């Protein structure tokens, strides 16, 4: 390695890494989500596998500089397949003392800590509860601290552009991005393109952001403070073309694809709610794909309008989060009685009630199962990761139409806002969703039987406008076959059993439960939804150490896959990690009489791999 004395051509050491985790954190107005998103996209484009975890406060703008107002975005990127956004952080960017205070605990010893020293004034330190300036005392000696006057350097970089100080300071996040881009050898090109597109109508702002980004990058390259940068090689993902996707976007695209594959218009009835609103936003962009989006007056109208569209023969969808699904309960029960296909998406968040709107949780499983009056079976499937949302959306509509039933898709805030690479499919390779509607009948044909079932117990989807099929649906109990209103006790008992059987039949139409590892042994970890990544990583880590542990991730939650009970019985112990107090565990114990053990966390945060690995190890002892 040679160095010259010429400042501008200092050649610095580049350390290869297999993976790294970076977190940007600052005030909720500091643009940390943007910085994180840009860094993720750039890392994905560089060929890394990535997983991200945006974490922001519920308040749109909490008071500046307060602990409550800290917004963070974490990116895990690697040269191999990864399944979680990482737990401890290799590099932390803290834009102010409050951000430092709330995030420092996750930084690895000797990790890179970049702070905006300009923001560490007396007032801000006080707001964060610091008596002394941590940059100046010796409290940060465990870390590689880079104290960078980002505010003043950004102001310097944008000088002469005739910006107000506020506008100039708003470019600080681009300075921070530039510095981290340099640190991990990232190209600035995608972000420069982003700036061009985003600020095309504000040339001065665009130029300021460009300059701030480059200033941050050049600061890393030229200053003596940083002796080395890092590189993370491309990941060996399955061959194909990739793009970066968040869960909400993948879900929206999957839903549009499902409509296309079934040759239906897509009708979305929705009401804005965190963290599901982005699905409404995303679908609203694609009206040219025969997508009708109806922003209803409330959650109830949203689901009811969707059911109206389903009766009309179109693809019906409603999207919401937990409190919204609570409001939709009555109409979901109606859709179940009407036996019409309807997709209900619940992007779970911290509950109960308004709970923690921007934080993640998995506590709506029992609501999805039982949150309606009477015996009201509705199938449930859950997405395991952002990219998986695409497949889950298509699968849900396939089940809904084949069995004539509403269906719930469960995702969560962690999956919805997180992102990962998505292998782009060809539409022609995706199997069509065959939907049939009965044809017209003549006056002298026998009467149409709206509730006559096929061998899988699904009733016909007869759509208005078809001559001779006039029929009435409704929430009052139906006479088997004819669909006429019936109060006959035996008929009601029979219909309740029939609807339950119909939903149970779905188990025959979905793949058997897969298991990672041996199909028998000491411990089986059973997970569902967004805990997939941390469970899988923890199990893989222990399997590599030769431990007798396997992992079953359950996508089909109602009904369960037909072999699940058998699989559970082949292990000495069953562990069910969940971000709730044991909802899947309760269902498994009930259905299979298995003494499943829970690992339960309700903190608005996903599991770390270590938490799960430690629990498994304790069960192996």
């Amino acid at each position: 390695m040679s160095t010259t004395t010429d400042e501008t051509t200092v050649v610095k050491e580049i350390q290869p890494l297999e993976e790294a985790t970076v977190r940007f954190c600052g005030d909720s107005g500091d643009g940390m989500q943007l910085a994180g998103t840009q860094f993720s996209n750039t890392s994905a484009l560089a060929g890394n596998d990535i997983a991200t975890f945006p974490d922001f406060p519920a308040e749109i703008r909490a008071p500046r500089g307060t602990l409550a107002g800290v917004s963070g975005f974490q990116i895990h990127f690697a040269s191999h397949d990864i399944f979680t956004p990482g737990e401890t952080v290799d590099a932390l960017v803290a834009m102010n003392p409050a951000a430092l205070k709330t995030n420092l605990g996750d930084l690895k010893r000797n990790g890179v800590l970049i702070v905006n020293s300009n923001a560490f004034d007396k007032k801000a330190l006080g707001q964060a509860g610091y008596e002394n300036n941590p940059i100046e005392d010796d409290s940060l000696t465990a870390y590689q601290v880079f104290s960078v006057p980002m505010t003043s350097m950004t102001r310097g970089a944008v000088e002469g552009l005739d910006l107000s100080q506020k506008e100039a300071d708003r470019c600080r996040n681009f300075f921070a991005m530039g510095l981290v881009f340099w640190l991990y050898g990232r190209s600035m090109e995608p972000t420069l393109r982003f700036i061009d597109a985003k600020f095309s109508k504000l040339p001065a702002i665009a130029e300021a952001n460009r300059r701030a980004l480059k200033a941050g990058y050049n600061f890393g390259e030229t200053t003596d403070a940083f002796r080395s940068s890092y590189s993370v090689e491309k990941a060996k993902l399955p061959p194909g073309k990739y793009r970066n996707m968040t869960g909400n976007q993948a879900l929206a695209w999957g839903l549009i694809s499902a409509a296309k594959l079934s040759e239906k218009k897509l009708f979305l009835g929705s009401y804005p709610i965190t963290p599901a609103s982005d699905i409404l936003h995303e679908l609203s962009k694609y009206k040219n794909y025969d997508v009708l989006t109806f922003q209803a007056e409330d959650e109830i109208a949203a689901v009811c309008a969707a059911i109206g569209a389903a009766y009309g023969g179109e693809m019906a969808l409603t999207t919401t989060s937990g409190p919204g699904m609570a409001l939709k309960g009555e109409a979901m029960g109606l859709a179940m009685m009407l036996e019409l296909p309807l997709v209900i998406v619940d992007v779970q968040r911290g509950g109960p009630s308004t709970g923690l709107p921007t934080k993640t949780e998995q506590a709506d499983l029992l609501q999805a199962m039982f949150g309606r009056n009477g015996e009201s079976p509705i199938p449930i499937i859950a997405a395991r990761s952002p990219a998986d949302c695409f497949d889950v959306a298509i699968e849900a509509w396939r089940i809904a139409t084949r069995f004539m039933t509403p269906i719930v898709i469960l995702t969560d805030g962690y999956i919805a806002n997180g992102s990962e690479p998505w292998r782009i499919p060809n539409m022609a390779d995706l199997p069509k969703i065959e939907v049939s509607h009965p044809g017209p009948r003549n006056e002298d044909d026998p009467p149409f039987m709206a509730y006559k079932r096929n061998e899988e117990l699904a009733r016909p989807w007869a759509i208005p406008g078809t001559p001779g099929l006039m029929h009435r649906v409704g929430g009052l109990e139906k006479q088997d076959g004819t669909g006429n209103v019936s109060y006959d006790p035996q008929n009601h008992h029979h219909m309740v059993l029939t609807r339950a059987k119909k939903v149970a039949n779905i188990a025959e139409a979905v793949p058997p439960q897969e298991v990672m590892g041996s199909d028998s042994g000491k411990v089986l970890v059973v997970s569902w939804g967004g805990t997939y990544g941390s469970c899988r990583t923890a199990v893989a880590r222990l399997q590599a150490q030769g431990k007798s542990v396997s992992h079953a991730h359950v996508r089909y939650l109602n009904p369960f896959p037909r072999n699940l009970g058998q699989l559970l019985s082949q292990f000495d112990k069953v562990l069910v990690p969940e971000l709730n107090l044991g909802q899947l565990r309760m269902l498994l114990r009930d259905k299979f009489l298995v003494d499943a053990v829970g690992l339960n966390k309700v903190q608005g945060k996903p599991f770390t791999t270590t938490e799960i690995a430690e629990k498994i190890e304790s069960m192996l002892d």
Partner: protein
Amino acid sequence: MASAELPVLKPADYGTDQDVRWCPGCGDYSILAQMKKVMSNLNMSREDTVFVSGIGCSSRFPYYMNTYGMHSVHGRAPAFATGLKSSRQDLTVFVITGDGDALSIGGNHLMHVLRRNVNLNIILFNNRIYGLTKGQYSPTSEKGKITKSTPMGAIDNPIHPLSVAISCEATFVARSIDVHIKHLTETLERAVAHKGVSFVEVYQNCNVFNDGAYKWATDKDTKAETVLELEHGKPLIFGKDRDKGIRLNGMTPEVVELGKGISEDDLLFHDEKTNDPTLAYLLTRMSHPEFPEPIGVLRDVDAPCYDDAINYQVQQAKEARGEASLDKLFNSGDTWIVD
């Protein structure tokens, strides 16, 4: 509407084989009969018509019409109908509702379906009582009304459905009475003919829980004095001898006797077509016994429909962005290849 080669259907052809289970003497029977007559008169096709209802006595209506139908959940029929009509503009969609269904539990949805101007026909059966739940007061019950749930009298102020409709910018607003058979038929026909949301309030008797709710409006002896039949372009005249009228005194209507220096030209003239809702609103405020209550069409104006607009945006997007291709969408923006 049926095409020319289809046989002309009689009113009975629009009925189902289901037993009608309303109480004997219920006003609903008349509305059902007039609806079948209207469909026959207009030669409407059964397969292109959908009746959507909420919950309540009136909401059993769809089961008795040989069309498509949905008996949905309490108060939400406007929402179901909005989804249906938006995605299937080729259908004629009716919403059948009652005063409790539409104005209590469904008040919010009614407000929004009206302001959106979805091309639906909403028929509100107003008997000023909860029938199906056996006799509690409803949002249109008079203050002081003694019922099972208000033994000391209702203390809520009643809602005036037509005032609500006008204030939500409903484009067609009308009122009729269950036993005024000819008037009801004509009013329903006008509602069907209107493009946009039509809101028809039908005064209707509940002979079990609120018998005589509109006795003043239906009795031979009193109806000429208590009901005023609106006609577009005509002065507001009523009375057995058509000797009384409504005049505006400033912003306030007053009852005047014709003759004695007051001529027809001094009266308020009905204009259902004016875009300004002020006069229509004023008509909704005329209540018995201070005033004769207007029946007929209070308002009938043209305005863009929600269902047209939502589909037009799809067309516009297609024209602006060309043929939709998911493959093109998937491969747009930043992508990379793994070999």
